[in-house]
Every structure is written in structure tokens, then in C-alpha cells.
């Protein structure tokens, strides 16, 4: 066991992790971040998507030890019920979910997309969300929600992974 310190939605948190434990299990079981959903557990569904140091990742394919010192953003960090993020608002307005299980991951992926590409076309939206599965098959409304949020998402401008070289 080792203590892992990392930032979750801007707040430093510490928890015990065991070697080989996924970031997903660590977030859910140790730090009670249950907004990060556990779907397939093998990188196929994207329900566990979080942003780590400015890029979207599957937290089920990342180990807790690898996230030490990192800055993690979950859907909860984007906004609250009282003060929702433009994407969260757009998802509600467009009815972009049925069961809602994929939603936190979808919203984080959509956020990652819009941070890098503030004005994506439909194909780019599909590609940006291609690592997330919705088994209620609500893709059309999800796509509409992301399209309607264009221009409303604050740019945090992260440089990592955007180099031209």
C-alpha cells in the first residue's frame, strides 16, 4: 500500500492505493468519486473517462500509481446542479441521455474535444466521442447536445499533447 496524492477537480486529495490498482477503482472505492462509472473495465465503453493533466483517458486502463501528483477532472468538477457547465446544460436541454450511465464519461469526452477544438463539425464530434458507448443508443441527441454547446465552453487551453512535432 502506498499513499497517493492527487488533485481531483482542483482539490488535493490523498488515499491508499495498492500496486496494480486501477485509477478507476481508486477513485470510486478510496475517494468516493462515484460519478466516474465502471462499465466494461477494459477500455471499450468510456464510462470511466476522466481528464488527467488536460487529456481524456480511460481511468480503467490507468493505474492509480501513475496518477500520483496528477490533476484529475471528473464530470462533477465541470459544474454543479446549481451551476451547471454549458455541456451539462446542453445535455439536459437536448435530453441527451436515457439511463444516464454513460453521461459522465460522455460529458468529459465532449469537454476534452471542445477544449482542443472549439468549433468541431459533426464528424469531429463523432470522432471525439468515439471512445464512449451509449447502450440506450442516444447518440443523435448526444451529438446534438455537443453541437449546441459549441461556443459556450470556456477554453482552458492545455498545451499537452497538442504539439505539432
Amino acid at each position, binding site marked *: 500500500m502506498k499513499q497517493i496524492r492527487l488533485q481531483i477537480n482542483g482539490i488535493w486529495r490523498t488515499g491508499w492505493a*495498492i*500496486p*496494480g490498482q*486501477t485509477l478507476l477503482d481508486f477513485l470510486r472505492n478510496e475517494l468516493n468519486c462515484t460519478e466516474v462509472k465502471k462499465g466494461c*473495465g*477494459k*477500455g*471499450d465503453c*468510456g464510462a470511466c*473517462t476522466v481528464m488527467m493533466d488536460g*487529456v*481524456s*483517458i*480511460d481511468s*480503467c*486502463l*490507468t*493505474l492509480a*500509481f*501513475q496518477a500520483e501528483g496528477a490533476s484529475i477532472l471528473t464530470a462533477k468538477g465541470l459544474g454543479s446542479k446549481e451551476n451547471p457547465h454549458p455541456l451539462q446544460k446542453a445535455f439536459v436541454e437536448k435530453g441527451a441521455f436515457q439511463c444516464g450511465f454513460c453521461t459522465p464519461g460522455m460529458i468529459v*469526452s465532449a469537454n*476534452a*474535444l471542445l477544449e482542443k477544438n472549439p468549433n468541431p463539425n459533426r464528424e469531429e464530434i463523432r*470522432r*471525439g466521442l*468515439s*471512445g*464512449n*458507448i451509449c447502450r440506450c443508443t442516444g447518440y443523435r441527441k448526444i451529438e446534438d447536445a455537443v453541437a449546441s454547446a459549441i461556443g459556450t465552453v470556456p477554453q482552458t487551453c492545455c498545451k499537452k*499533447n*497538442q*504539439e*505539432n*512535432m
Partner: protein
Amino acid sequence: MQVRDHLFPTSTLEAIALLQGEDGKARLIAGGTDLTLEIRDKTNSFEVLVDVGRIPGLDQILLDGDQIQLGPRVTMTQVEKSKLLQQYATALWEACSWVGGPQIRNRATLAGNIVSAQPAADGAIALVAMNAMLTILGSEGERSCVLSDSYISVGRSTIDSSREMITTIAFDKQRPGEASAFRRMAQRKAMALPQLNCAIWIASIDGQCQNVRIAIGPVATKPFRARQSEAYLAGKPLTEETLSACAAAIQEEVQPRDSVLRGSGKYRKEMTGVLAKETLELAIHRLEGSLA
């Protein structure tokens, strides 16, 4: 097997020393998109992870003269976003954009694509067509290896990640008169393993093929080089007739097996000809661009 420790060396030499200290019980990890699944399924044979994630400078994409050098932690996303690779290693740039979804591409490395030794790995297929050379660091020092010689069989590489690591992936950039392309066939446009993939690098002068490398997967236990078809095309004019004949020769040369996941061998054999023809045409189309 329970993972006992997860270590973060700060240099490649320290990483090798840590691996050596565990005498085969440790395994190198970078992106971890494959290894995490082994741990999850408890099929891992390692007890210790030696993580290269905090060694500085391993994620560089460099152009050194005519040679492109990639560090071992270069991710699929980095390749996909690289203007340099789009221009000088087009097939690789194209191939990496097909791997998984954005979340996986943000973590998965090209080096991992190589050592996992899957005959269908998109990035590795493109690197085979680019004739990539690997530099590998072990306790005895550095050694070099042509990428296509690093394959033993499905999932087995001559690069032993419990004792050594790739430090550089290098290949020549495309010069004027050279081009490359990558195409794949899969059940979905994203998050699907390829039923077939094909990468082609070609060099020509005055509409005549000088040299060509054709890599195809997964039609054998390792990335397949269609050497007979390459020999056929070399020296020939790049006409519709020779391209069709070359595609037919490629189809003849491959022996894909039946696969529940990827389709019947018969179907995939026929489709190899179609895919190879498309890839050739795309490469030749770009060839025209490279001379313009």
C-alpha cells in the same frame, strides 16, 4: 498474480537496473493500455512494474537529417497530431489515428504497439512499411534491430520487456518521389480491431516504381511483408494494369486464417486484394503530390 510494487525510475539506465534486479519478475510499463488488462484478468506473469512515465525526454518526435526518431513514450495521439509525421511518414500518421478511441490514443504508445507483437497492430504495420529500426537498451548495453525481425509469433517479441526497453524507433523520412499510405477494414470506424490493414511505402521516378514495401496484417503470425509482390512491382510503370496485377499478386501471397472476430479466411483473402489496391492508389496519388 498480485503486483508487489510499481517503481518510477528517473533514467533509462535506472529502469534497466531495476528490471535486472528483479531478474525477470518485473515488467516495463509505459501507457499500460495492454498491461492493465493483464492485471485485471490476473494473467500477468510479473510482480513488479517498472514505469517509464517519469523519465524525461522519452516522448520526443525528432527529425535528424533525413531520419525520424521517435522516443519510446510517444503516444498515438502525438503521432496523430504531428504535422511532421503527416508530411514525412504519412502511413504511420494515418494508422495511429485508427487505434482505439481518443482516451486510448492519449495513453497507448507506439513502442507498446511493437512489444505487444500483435500482427494486426495498426501502428506497427505502418512502421514495418516505413522499414523502422529499433534501438533497444538492456543490461549489456544497446543493440539495434530491424522492426520486422523483432517478431517471434503472435504476442511474442524478441524484445524482452522484463529485461530491456526500446529507446528509439527510427526510420527515413519520405523524400520527394516517395509516399506512403495506410488503409484498414474494420466492422466500425472506431474502437474496432482491424479485420485487415495494409501499409505501403513507395518510391518512384518518372512514373516508374523504384522500390516498394507492402505490409499487411493480420494475415500471418506477424506483420506480413508481401515480398514477392514488392519484387513484381519494382521497376514497373505505375499504370492501372500493373497496379491491378500487383494487387492480385498480393492477394495470392497472403493466407489469412478463418477468424470468428475478423471474418473467414476466404473472404479476407479476397478483401486483401481490394484493400491493397486502394492503399496503392492512395500512395500513388500522394506520390504525385510529393513531386508537385
